[in-house]
């Protein structure tokens, strides 16, 4: 998992373009989106986990799993499939 830059848009704030270090690549399709909410009762130092996750197909053919931490608003590249 590594930090990644993402541009979003649309009514669902889906990723439109991703920069994982090699320049901006357009998102060709959002194939799935899901949400993870775990441990709402957690207190410091642990944190509740609230994140949105997207599986996207990029215009260069890659398939990535991206996640957005809803608390910190940070995007992370969770998985590069293939």
């Amino acid at each position, binding site marked *: *998992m590594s930090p990644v830059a993402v541009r979003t848009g649309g009514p669902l704030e889906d990723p439109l373009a991703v920069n994982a270090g090699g320049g901006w690549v357009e998102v060709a399709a959002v194939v799935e989106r899901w949400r*993870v909410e*775990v441990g709402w009762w957690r207190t410091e130092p642990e944190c509740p*986990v609230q994140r949105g996750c997207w599986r996207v197909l990029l215009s260069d053919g890659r398939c990535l799993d991206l996640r957005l931490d809803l608390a910190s608003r940070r995007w992370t590249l*969770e998985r590069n499939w293939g």
Partner: protein
Amino acid sequence: MSKNGRARLACLTFPHLALVLAWRAHPELQGEPVLVGGNGPGGRQVLLAASPPALVLGVRPGQDWRRAEILCPLAVRLQADLAALAGLRRTARLALAGCSPLVEWSDDTSAYVDLTGTDPRRQQEGPRAASCGRVLQEALGVPLSVGVGPSRFSAWAAAQRAEPGRVRLVPEGKAAEFLATWPVSALPIPPETVERLVQFGLRTCGDCASITMVDLQRQFGSDGILLYRLCLGLDSARIDPWHEPPPCGVRRVLAGGVDDAESLRFGAAELARGLAWELSQQGRAAGRIRLILRGEEEESRPPAHLDPRIWWSEVAPPIPMATADELLGPLLSLFGRARLSTAVMVVELEALDLVVPPASQVSLWQGRAADREVIQLAVNRLHDRFGRGLVWRVEVRPGHPGDVPEERLIWRSR
């Protein structure tokens, strides 16, 4: 070959070989409750096999012997003749090996034969499975059941449903349907998992197959994936083929000859280490070892029992020997028996009745216990050299659903 290239396995099930031997020795015991005991892990006495009338009373192979006696007080109690058992096992394996090169001897109650590749133009898989059954039946002298399916569990289940002396086929693509009514208690999964399944109301394979694999995984972890595959007949179809093991032994030529038995004993430790290494290369333990002392160094070696210039003896301890420590004691006892009529030029130590080492049988799914210890020692040395945090073992946190990948695993450095 089946139509879409999937595997087809035959499972042959038969009474435990120890029971077969007991019935051969005592034909009058057929139909009676019989318990056959033997040595289990750590040398304790366990139940090796029980006849059907005894099984009904709740005894189970692997149980402590005392417990089995309590559950079935009126049963006839016999001790397994391990040498005869090994001989019958070898006979049966060789008989099946004549039918197919891909035979796995699962335990002393079942065997698997890979039928994938049976040319439908020449012989259907049913007759081929039946011919394997006939060969083994002839070797054992007892009726057995044969099941054919696309995976190990479906083939085994089909064999359970087959009458003795008959073959039951699970048609291509019908494994899930065939397994639908099987109770989850028949699945090769931990009893705790069975209990939880029943609590969830999942009592049959069909019930489990109606749940998605992901949901089963969320509840049961990796057992859930296995459960899903088993219930659909999609578990492994791989055979671990048995081959007649190559001879295993060490030979030492003594320059000048030795005529003193005590002097020979000094070489026992080195012989034991050498044989232990040979056994480790094959991943086997010796049920029996033979020591041969020859008065002449010669390349053409007649069988030891025919040549008067050769002294030899054997020992078969209760527990198979795999390590140098385990071999040394019995080897010293053999040297102690040696009677030398001439100076010894050649010492040979042979391992016979090769078996999977007992510790490995217990942790079969986890790889050989002895190998893991060796790897752990290597890891310890790496940590001493480079510091902790280089080599890790990881396990899935029990009960974690997997939604948060970074919390799903427990990392251990040593």
